[in-house]
């Protein structure tokens, strides 16, 4: 009985941490307020771009993930790690990287211009979607790749020996199960887009709900409006989560002995093309960040190091807390509940938490714990998306066996589940750490001078005309995020062939 209470308590904690702050802001703002026609325009653009960004990310991820799943080549595992980088890039760094490739004076225009190709203009709705695909394709690829790797190799052998159509028999059922969840989580991330949409959207046509919240908060101090919009975000997030639950059908693939997959189907050349295209699209902007940042590394101020330590502290703390909450929450309902966390504007969450803690402590004293907490909420949906398929398969395939052997509680987890979950847990922990590392988040509302995090120092440098040093800080941030991601991800894959 006590064991059944754990997931419920975890779900209540998550829901409370989201609904509490939103309610606090709503209460302080004096209730709901009506949305203007400009807000409705923003809402429809927000939904439209999020839908297309998510669809394109997920559809493109299928051939890339399949290619990565069935080919083995030198550097494959390093490539998979590095290709994950865009997802964890701080927004502003990613924009600079994208513009270095696709911008008016970017690489593509410089190379293609002399060949008579008309000038490429990244600014507009297509630019917003391009950027969102850049951010989220890596996540989609990893989620779907996991699905592929979860198909036991025995199944492929059987299918190959029977000459059965592998796609329809094995892959399509897996995709039907994985794709709706991947779509939902990316859709919800893109709902919260603000700076990307504005900068690459080219102007007010690309206004999102998040911008309206920002404006209501910073300029109008209209908390009622900010909270009302946050509730709209919550509803959209819940709707996306619910739809994903309904659509996510398909049976489990079955039990295997975890042997390495060998494949006899598919075109080697086509797979190679997909891998190269994806790598070029994801890595070229990253190279631009590297090139822009290198000279600035020498200009970095000494204060960057304590800021780096604070960021590492937040990242590691967020990893531990997220994992502790995620394991009991790895159920359908838990995953849907966790979508609440990323649906809601970070600004509203931060403001609500500020209102809640302020009567008791000085907000700047709890800046780091609060930033950590918000990062946990933001990471949970990804983490659950990554963990749940594994946890459920482990439960279905080995739970009864474990019980029949008299294993229960923590022992069952330790002996049966955790070893099976190493790979997804490593990936999820790496993602959480890297995201928390790069998040500017709510620290701006709480911080004290000299106590900023690495992303905050990067923004301060930019605000003080020190662009060169800021790019250096960005490079440091990317390197550390990626390092953290790699370390966890690698740890999770120890002893595994993949």
């Amino acid at each position, binding site marked *: 009985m006590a064991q059944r209470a754990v997931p419920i308590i975890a779900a209540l904690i998550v829901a409370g941490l989201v609904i509490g702050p939103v309610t606090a802001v709503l209460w302080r703002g004096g209730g709901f307020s009506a949305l203007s026609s400009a807000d409705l325009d923003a809402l429809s653009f927000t939904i439209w771009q999020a839908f297309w960004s998510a669809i394109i990310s997920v559809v493109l991820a299928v051939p890339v993930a399949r290619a990565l799943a069935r080919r083995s080549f030198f550097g494959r595992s390093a490539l998979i790690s590095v290709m994950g980088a865009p997802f964890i890039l701080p927004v502003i760094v990613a924009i600079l990287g994208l513009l270095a490739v696709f911008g008016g004076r970017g690489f593509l225009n410089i190379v293609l211009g002399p060949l008579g190709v008309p000038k490429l203009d990244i600014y507009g709705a297509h630019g917003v979607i391009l950027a969102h695909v850049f951010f989220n394709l890596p996540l989609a690829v990893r989620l779907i790749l996991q699905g592929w790797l979860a198909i036991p190799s025995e199944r492929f052998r059987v299918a190959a020996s029977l000459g059965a159509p592998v796609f329809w028999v094995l892959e399509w059922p897996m995709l039907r199960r994985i794709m709706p969840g991947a779509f939902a989580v990316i859709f919800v991330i893109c709902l919260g887009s603000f700076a990307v949409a504005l900068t690459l959207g080219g102007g007010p046509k690309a206004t999102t709900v998040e911008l309206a919240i920002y404006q209501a908060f910073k300029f109008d101090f209209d908390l009622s409006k900010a909270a009302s919009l946050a509730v709209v975000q919550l509803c959209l997030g819940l709707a996306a989560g619910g739809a994903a639950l309904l659509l996510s059908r398909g049976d489990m693939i079955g039990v295997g002995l975890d042997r390495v997959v060998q494949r006899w189907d598919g075109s080697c050349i086509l797979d190679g093309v997909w891998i190269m295209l994806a790598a070029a699209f994801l890595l070229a902007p990253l190279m631009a960040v590297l090139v822009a940042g290198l000279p600035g590394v020498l200009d970095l101020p000494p204060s960057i190091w304590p800021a780096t330590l604070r960021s590492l502290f937040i990242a590691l703390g967020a990893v531990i807390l997220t994992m502790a909450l995620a394991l009991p929450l790895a159920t359908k309902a838990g995953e849907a509940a966790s979508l609440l966390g990323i649906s809601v504007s970070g600004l509203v969450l931060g403001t609500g938490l500020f209102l809640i803690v*302020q009567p008791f402590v000085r907000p700047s004293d709890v800046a780091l714990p609060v930033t950590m907490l918000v990062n946990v909420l933001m990471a949970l949906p990804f983490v659950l998306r990554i963990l749940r398929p594994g946890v459920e398969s482990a439960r279905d395939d080995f739970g009864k066996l474990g019980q029949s052997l008299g294993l229960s509680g923590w022992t069952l987890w330790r002996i049966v589940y955790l070893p099976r979950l190493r790979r997804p847990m490593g990936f999820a922990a790496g993602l959480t750490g890297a995201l928390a590392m790069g998040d500017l988040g709510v620290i701006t509302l709480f911080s004290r001078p000299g106590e900023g995090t690495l992303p905050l120092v990067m923004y301060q440098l930019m605000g003080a005309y020190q662009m060169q040093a800021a790019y250096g800080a960005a490079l440091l941030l990317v390197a550390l995020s990626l390092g953290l991601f790699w370390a966890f991800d690698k740890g999770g894959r120890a002893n595994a062939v993949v």
Partner: protein
Amino acid sequence: MKKTLLTVAGLLFGTAAIADGHQPVLTVYAPDYFGSEWGPGPSIEAAFEERCGCDLQYQTGDLLPRLLLEGARTEADVAIGFNTDVTKRARDSGMFAPHGLDLSPLTLPIDWDDDTFLPFNYGHTAFIYDNTKSDGFTSFEALLDAPDDVRVVIQDPRSSISGLALVLWVNAVYGDEAEAAWTRLAPKIVTVTQGWSESYGLFTDGEADVVLSYTTSPAYHIIAEEDLTKTAAIFEEGHYFMVELAAKLTTTDNPDLADQFMAFILTEDFQTMIPTTNWSFPAALPEAQWPAGFQDLPMPEKVLFYDENEAAALREQAIEAWRSALSQ
């Protein structure tokens, strides 16, 4: 039980005794850029602590939203870094007390007689360009008439104070024709960014030819980088005036120290620190005492300015003119 109570009491009194031994604390709320090690905050702190025998502590972040969230419970004694385009909201909150200072040392290009909000620096909105690639623009009209391949980047008036100043500037120059002016400028606007930093980064990266910034921006490049290629285009129609302000909280538990800090703002010590830490013009310092790079900056002949009431009244329509023209 008794023992515990005694221990707790001992701790409490002990703490009180320690606190007594400490210097009084002056808490100053400021925007993030102000308190960072590249802003004016640290040198101002050191100079003030030398004369007050106190401990000046900054709390940084979104200035006005944070103060309004905290209300009467705020720890702030002084808040520094307001902008006129949003001071109405601040004044209406009733959280700020008159400064009681003689304003004759002010050297602003406009008259200033506000008894609550005290200016400490100013600048003007301006478009910055690279003088090795362009001859610049002598008027707003010239910019609007420029070929459409001139790439301009501006800030969003809904998320950035300089973006808001721009729509007020256009409104001051063009009045009822503001939307038409925006329609002419629209094809040249590559993009609109959330804040000033992103825009300026796009400009220094070469992604834009012209960026909305301040008349004082070239001074940074001249003084800190010895780079003479960045110039502010001076428009004959005039430039929108932007001033930053400080005010004392009515709820301060250190009114004397707060007053002392407000008076410090107008001193030469404070004012001479402004140009090269805040990259803006000092509000109370004769031009002869400005650093050379600032004295040589081209200054607008005409200054356009809406007071806080006008700015508040015009804001919505000015933003709407921008929004509808750029949404076409």
